[in-house]
């Protein structure tokens, strides 16, 4: 995404982290070695429960998850993470390919579903894809957070003006619609542009695009 200068992610370059969850120590260990050989950090957990009990680090990354585990299964863990609002990408590993299970996992947003034994390159590809997806997601989230923060500094009137400007109305039309003078519209407009850190309509539009849909449509 080509974002203009004023609105950028706060921490654009952070080392990614892969989170491995598998009940088999040798598999955890081996995948960790494989990832470290291409320079990806990893932490390993022996069960879904262990992962849920720890606070996830605030780093871009992904989860490499075994489907078949005693206690909470991989699919269960995916549900738990989704319902608690954690949208970190998940790569599933499974011992025995189960179509129904993989469909369910992919529907719930899994990046990949790999059947063991999976070739080393396939793991690396899936993990890299998941990490770049997460980096993009985090970037977009950061941009969106920033835009929301800026948007929240606006007065109700400035918000109305913003809405009308991005909808392509002229100052005159806005003045008519809001039942105020054109001079007042211009005042609101320039203050709104300043608050949104926008130097041009293009900047303003990209900031508007970064706002979550609920903000864009939610208010009247």
């Amino acid at each position, binding site marked *: 995404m080509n974002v203009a200068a004023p609105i950028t992610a706060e921490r654009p370059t952070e080392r990614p982290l892969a989170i491995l969850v598998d009940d*088999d120590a*040798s*598999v955890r*260990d*081996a*995948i960790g*070695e*494989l990832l*470290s*050989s*291409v320079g990806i950090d990893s932490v390993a957990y022996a069960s879904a429960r262990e992962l849920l009990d720890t606070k996830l680090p605030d780093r871009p990354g992904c989860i490499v998850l075994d489907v*078949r585990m005693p206690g909470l299964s991989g699919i269960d863990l995916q549900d738990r993470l989704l319902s608690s609002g954690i949208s970190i990408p998940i790569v599933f*590993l499974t*011992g*025995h*390919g*189960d*179509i129904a299970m993989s469909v369910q996992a992919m529907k719930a947003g899994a990046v990949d579903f790999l059947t*063991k*034994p*999976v*070739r*080393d*390159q396939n*793991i*690396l590809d899936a993990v890299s894809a998941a990490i770049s997806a997460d980096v993009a997601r985090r970037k977009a989230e950061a941009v969106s957070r920033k835009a929301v923060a800026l948007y929240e500094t606006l007065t109700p009137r400035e918000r109305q003006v913003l809405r009308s400007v991005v909808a392509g109305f002229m100052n005159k039309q806005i003045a008519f619609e809001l039942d105020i003078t054109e001079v007042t519209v211009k005042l609101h407009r320039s203050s709104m542009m300043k608050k949104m850190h926008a130097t041009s309509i293009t900047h303003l539009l990209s900031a508007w695009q970064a706002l979550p849909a609920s903000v864009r449509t939610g208010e009247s």
Partner: protein
Amino acid sequence: MKLPSFITRRSSAVAISAAGVLLAGISLEPWGLLIPIVAACICCGWKKGLVMVAAANLLAFGILFYRDGIGAISVTALAVFAATGLGVWLLVHLFRSERFYDRVYDATHPSVEDIPGLGWFAYPDGRLRFLNPAALTFIGVSPEKMREWIDTDDWWTQFVHPDEVDRCVANWRHAMKTGEPILEEQRVRRHDGTYRWFRDTAVASRDERGRITGWYGHTQDIDDQKRAQAALHERERELRLLVDTVPSLISLLTPEGLPYYFNKRFVDWADVESGDAAGGAGRPLTTYTALIHPDDRAEALTRFQESIATGEPLSQKYRLLGKDGEYRWFDSRLQPLRDETGAIIRWYGVNLDVDDEVRSREALRLADERLSRALRAASLSELSVSIAHELNQPLQAVVANAGAFKRWLRADPPNFENASRISEKIIRDAESAAQVLGRIRALFAQASDQRQPVDVNAVITEVCDLATDKLQAANVRLETALDPRLPETTADHVQIEQVVFNLLRNSIEAMQAVDAHSRVLRIATRRLRNDLGSDRLEVEVRDQGPGISDPDRIFEPFYTTKADGMGMGLAICRSIIEGHGGRVRAENVAGGGASVAFMLPVQAVEAIAEDLKLRAGQ
């Protein structure tokens, strides 16, 4: 509680007094008032007499006032009257006191005074005449106090426990009326306020003409005895309660083994006659043994008689018939009681209801058996899945580690340290894969086949039973055409079961793709013989599914048409059948669907080999 003699005495005193007062009033002469004084003194005691003296003085004053007027009242006459009244009272009082002291101190009644325990003496009408010193001490009353009670007959009621007063008074009245002796027990209050049990014995003393001249009574302290008796009774009651309420059937038997007592539970549950009702008489043992289930009776009786003969305690289980007509399982124990010489004096029998336990254990055993059979039958495909999973783990580790190994070597400059560390891990993971294989091999070795004569038709029926749920769930109709003359074959029962179950399952799954009403599964058995001496039996499973795309490959390992299949089931089936000297075949049926069949030699492989050897020898 007033006694009749008391009331009559009081009423006669009142009547006489009233007559005296009336006489004095009519004649206007105060001397007539001396009559009520005498009556009161004699009939009501000297305190009331004194009151009467005062009352008579007042009345006399009234009479004189009315007759002579206030001025002319003769003070002298009044004084003389008062003095006379007091004199009469004193006379009566002295007379009575003297008689009392005569009795007490002049030993006129040594028999009463000297009797041990508490003694008393009463007039024929029940009035007290005398209480011996022991009695006075016991109830804590002074001789003076007793003198006040002389001539009253209800004084004792205050010393008798309130619960028994009514009964005692009734007895006393009855004795007064009939002259019968009194024999009763009651609690009497001691001077310190506690009650003790006493036995009261009283007889009437009669003169030569048979008239009652008085009552002599003796009261004996039986409290300790009474308490001991009550305690004994209570213990006995508790014991009986225990025996009757304890949740088991208890019986007592004579040394010869004849029951003579059944506890209440036994009586209630089995409707036998309690030994109590029969007066403890032993009844024939058969009434009891008739309750034992016919299947258990012979053995139970034998062991019972053995036990009675040897004196050994007995413990056995059998079913007993309740009065509701149901048999229940009981754990029966028999224990002899011996006297000091070691001779058995009776047998104690306890029957504990263990029906629920026995039944649940039986149910558990059956369920367990069914479960293990179902597991055995279902295990082929599940087993292969878990084998795959077990193997996948170390293989995955090997692959991932090898990838890392390769990358460290290719790095610039190559990282040999990391590479060699990882190569160690690769070796370790490969070894663990080998271990998995070893474990699986050991598992199969454990379940090495056990050959025995097998009725293949019975195996098929069993498997169909097991698969009923599956058939219903999949909406499949089952048709069987089993040859009733099918001979037995020597085989491993479990393995043959597994093969049949597997074929059944495959067919059911194959038909999921077709219309529900055409889902028919057909199992047939038949015997195949030819002139060349070949004698085999064949089991064919036929379905109406889409058929087999490649019938020649279907028995090959890892060949599967199922999305989540391992391709192991039919391969294992083939190895089982071939291990039994049989063959498998699969083909598409002309009208649609597939037929999978296996053949087994009627004679066991070993038998054929023996046979061949014999022929070769000839």
